[in-house]
């Protein structure tokens, strides 16, 4: 009897008790570990900072006013965006040939190259960055090579150059994975048709392959940008306190300085920039594919 009554309701798409029960464990975890923390970040960003640690009940925008009126924080935001942009552009430049090799290169090389790309994705960022630290240090191989060829004015460790190098290494695999997905989705007959109609390989690439991979390039760029913008370990370990970003300042303010309202407000700024970039990418993909 109950079964015959319950059945139509389930078909109507309303969440049944069983569905709720299945969702319950994950919902509980996300309520405590995700929703509540996000709420606290937003709530604390509207607090007044008091070294004594007393919490005001009032809501104030003073942290945001500080961030947007102090040139120091303006520079910080610009520098963070600049680092992410440099990382994204370099990742696209080196990721594209690699994605081409994985999708169109010699067959026996395709799988090993793809495996090679996943290695940095699955190695601890601390370990990778430690490797870079040794390589970039003043008596490391790269720096000594630079010194030997007369480029000793170029320093690697504790500089922006070193941080970008580490960021590219950590995040360019995301670009490659996006590009590989886009390039392998392209109908190869369009390329063959162009070639058989007399286009040179360069023309085929410029007029047929590249335009069809733009979706993947946009997705990979957005992903590389937002993840490299949020990096903490790389700027902290390779910047040596000389390259600060929004993220390293959040970390210092939250842990050593204990200025939670300022850390939270910078966190909200970072979150908003991330959401804007991700929505822009979604919009762009929709706009392009509709044409």
């Amino acid at each position, binding site marked *: 009897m109950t079964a015959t009554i319950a059945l139509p309701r389930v078909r109507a*798409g309303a*969440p049944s008790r069983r*569905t709720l029960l*299945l*969702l319950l*464990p*994950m*919902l509980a*975890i*996300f309520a*405590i*570990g*995700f929703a509540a*923390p*996000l709420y*606290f*970040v937003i709530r*604390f960003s509207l607090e007044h900072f008091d070294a004594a640690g007393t919490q005001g009940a009032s809501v104030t925008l003073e942290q945001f006013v500080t961030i947007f009126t102090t040139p120091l924080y303006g520079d910080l935001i610009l520098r963070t965006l600049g680092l992410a942009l440099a990382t994204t552009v370099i990742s696209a430049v*080196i990721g594209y*040939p690699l994605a081409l*090799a994985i999708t169109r*290169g010699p067959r026996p090389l395709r799988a090993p*190259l793809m495996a*090679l790309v*996943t*290695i*940095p994705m*699955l*190695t*601890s*960022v*601390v*370990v*990778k*960055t*430690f*490797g*870079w*630290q*040794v*390589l970039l*240090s003043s008596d490391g*191989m790269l720096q000594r090579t630079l010194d030997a060829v007369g480029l000793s004015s170029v320093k690697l460790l504790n500089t922006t150059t070193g941080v970008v190098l580490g960021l590219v*290494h950590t995040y360019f695999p995301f670009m490659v994975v996006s590009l590989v997905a886009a390039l392998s989705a392209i109908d190869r007959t369009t390329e063959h048709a162009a070639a058989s109609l007399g286009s040179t*390989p360069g023309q085929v690439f410029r007029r047929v392959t590249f335009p069809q991979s733009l979706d993947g390039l946009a997705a990979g760029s957005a*992903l590389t940008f937002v*993840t490299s913008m*949020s990096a*903490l*370990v790389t700027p*902290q*370990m390779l910047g040596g306190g000389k390259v600060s970003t929004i*993220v390293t300042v*959040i970390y210092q303010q*939250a*842990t050593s300085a204990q200025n939670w309202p300022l850390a939270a407000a910078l*966190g*909200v700024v970072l*979150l908003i920039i*991330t959401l804007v970039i991700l929505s822009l990418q979604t919009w762009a993909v929709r706009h392009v594919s509709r044409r």
Partner: protein
Amino acid sequence: MSVAGERRKLGSVLFGLVIAIIVVFILAPLAVAVGSSVTTTGYLAFPPRGFTLKWFGEAASNPKFLEALWTSLQLGVATTVISVVAGVLASYAIVRRPGPLTAVLEQVLLSPILLPAVVLGLGILLSLSLSGWLGTFPGGLLAHIIVASPFVTRSVLAGLRRLDPRLEEASHSLGAGGVRTFCRIVLPSVRGAIIGGAVFAFVISFDEAVVTLFLTGSDFTTLPVTIFTYVQYSNDPTIAAVSTVIILVSALLVGLVTRQGGRDER
């Protein structure tokens, strides 16, 4: 040979060279970490001078590293088990009840992959310190599940969506109940997706440093966080030995998944 043929050959040689440089770039820091772990010098040197395994002994007899390794392993296993159980149940509900509500829920459950980890770390720091759980294992576990479970959910969702719903209908019409169908039909069919997601969750948890840096205390610290703090003050090759162990653990697990993935496709 024609000029065009010569040019094409030159082009592919250049292309090969570019790929070779990128490969060296990818492997360089890992090679340095592994290479400098066997140096006989008392400081980090690459290329290493001589060959010794003494730094692995040093690492293995350092209680700080051992405790952190033990914590990281426990944390990784607990994170994986909880993420898999909760992730499989939630994914099943989402796939079997498609609608606007579950679509939003799916986005939320996957969003920790894209949202800045620092914001999450800071938020969890705030809520844990208000509730007195900061610097404890359960606090760290909660954070790791949020960071790692999206990878399980994503993998299992994809697996379930490839599954033919008629299999379940057949099972139901033959008289099997919901639970029995789930255990006998659904779970075995998405085994590969679950294992893949589980290994990913373990590796993510085992390597996690950003969120954890906000949450560690004197009683709770993980291996990556220990390395992070150690390299700021010290320059001895012990840390290279520890890094080598981490690289080997990750490589081993990834190798296992790749083999599993190949088996699923066949």
